[in-house]
């Protein structure tokens, strides 16, 4: 059995989760401080990928990044790199679909954070950076971890946008989800079943991890 799709799926999910972790926390932290109207608009825009069909996200990404479209064409001309149809092209797709999960869970955690704690830190002479990393992040740890796990699971399972942006090339851009589709299309039910079982196993482990985090959060309060 060729394990390339597993390796590819895991590295795409890992890299996009790392990116989404910082992007989501950054967005949640700064958007929480904005005026209500701006916050409402940004909230809708940033959460949209969660409810849009992945094919719509894929189409929008192709319009931006495809070799015949502005950004994609510019990068191709300047660096000689095509942004689509590489194994890492899928990262664009998974970042967009996983971002809302991280952003929303982190924002929920930050919103329930007691502002008095931050103010106490300030009156004690502590910097904003110190307060954020030493008080706010540890206090919101459970929520942020849960968001990270959800984002990873979502990135791992991405199919629609990935198949449009990265396509399916065995040994190059194949992921678990695109491989399952391909094997089913070619009537290889045994091959498809193997990958289905692998996928179910990984997802189950991740959901278990989320539940453990959530129950620890409940027990502590």
């Amino acid at each position, binding site marked *: 059995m060729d394990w390339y799709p597993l390796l590819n799926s895991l590295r795409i999910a890992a890299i996009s989760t790392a990116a989404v972790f910082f992007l989501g926390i950054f967005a949640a932290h700064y958007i929480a401080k904005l005026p209500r109207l701006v916050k409402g608009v940004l909230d809708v825009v940033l959460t949209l990928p969660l409810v849009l069909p992945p094919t719509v996200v894929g189409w929008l990404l192709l319009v931006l990044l495809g070799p015949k479209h502005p950004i994609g064409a510019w990068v191709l001309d300047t660096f000689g790199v095509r942004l689509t149809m590489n194994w890492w092209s899928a990262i664009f797709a998974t970042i967009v679909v996983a971002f809302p999960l991280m952003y929303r869970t982190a924002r929920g955690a930050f919103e329930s954070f007691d502002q008095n*704690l931050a*103010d*106490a830190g300030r*009156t*004690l002479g*502590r910097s904003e950076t110190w307060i954020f990393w030493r008080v706010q992040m540890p206090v919101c740890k459970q929520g942020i971890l849960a968001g990270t796990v959800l984002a990873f699971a979502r990135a791992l399972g991405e199919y629609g946008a990935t198949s449009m942006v990265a396509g399916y090339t065995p040994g190059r851009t194949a992921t678990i989800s695109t491989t399952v589709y391909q094997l089913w299309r070619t009537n290889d039910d045994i091959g498809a079943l193997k990958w289905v079982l692998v996928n179910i196993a990984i997802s189950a482990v991740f959901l278990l991890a989320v539940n453990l985090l959530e129950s620890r959060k409940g027990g502590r309060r």
Partner: protein
Amino acid sequence: MSLTVRIKKQLGDFCLEADFTAEQETLALLGASGCGKSVTLKCIAGILQPDEGLIQLDGQTLYDSAAGVCLPPQKRGVGYLFQNYALFPNMTVRQNIAAAVTDKSRRRAVAEEKLRQFQLEPLADLKPAQLSGGQQQRTALARILASEPRAILLDEPFSALDSYLKYQMELELTEMLERFSGPILFVTHDQGEVFRACRRVCVMDQGRTQGVLTLRELFHAPGTQAAARLSGCKNLADAVPQGTKAVLPQWGLTLECDRPVPADIRCAGIRADLISPHPQEGANAVPCTVQRVIQDVFTTIVLLRPEGAAVDAPPLRMEVDRDARQTVENGSRLTVFIQSRDILLLK
């Protein structure tokens, strides 16, 4: 060492106007809940920014709208005791206290010293959630003092404690505060706390401070209705000045005062515990009907209806010692006496 505050801040349709100076003392900021006490403290600490005005501590300008000065909270040297103590839940008692020391070389030594001073050594490795309310407050105070503030702000420090613990903590707090050299602002709505912990008090009503009074003044000449109410005066009625007399139309009374009643007096106050059922020479005698008798823990409260009171007038409230109480029955007639010096003349 003194703290001068002269600020204005508009919050929706609520206007805050605070103007007072605290010397090296514990100054009470007394007001009903929602009157702007906490906002005032937050402006002093730099957590909120006033619209205009001046805040000076120890000769240093913390905020001055005219000069465009507004120091961040980190640079103000003002300690703030939050109502919920705001201890960092992810840190132990020791770490909480150490967090207040920004100078890394002294962090350990200062933290250990405060742990010892506040008898927190046995609790040093516990998290705030494992502490009782009193222990949390002690930790919060130790943490504030570890940051070496030049002034301390206490925001309703006892509101989260039950009454027995509250008494204990009051003792501890007043002891600790006596050793602190710098202005302390003590926000509360409880006149008893003011009486036990402070010598001077600034009354705040609907966002406005009403000048600084001594305790004596607060209880004997509060000056305004709001101050009289906050000092625990239960009987307040509209009054019309008439020479040395005050006419109280609501209760159909004309009371003789021991001093001329200024023309701008609009209200009179009589403390419930200064109304006596025993005849006294030169006192105003007020014939009443007993409306209701209520047994309180240490006193008996008698609600009276002066003869000639208007139909919708509130009752006159008298409080007498439980032991000294006579047998007063609902509906019986009782003449009570009010000394001419005990009538509070209020604007």
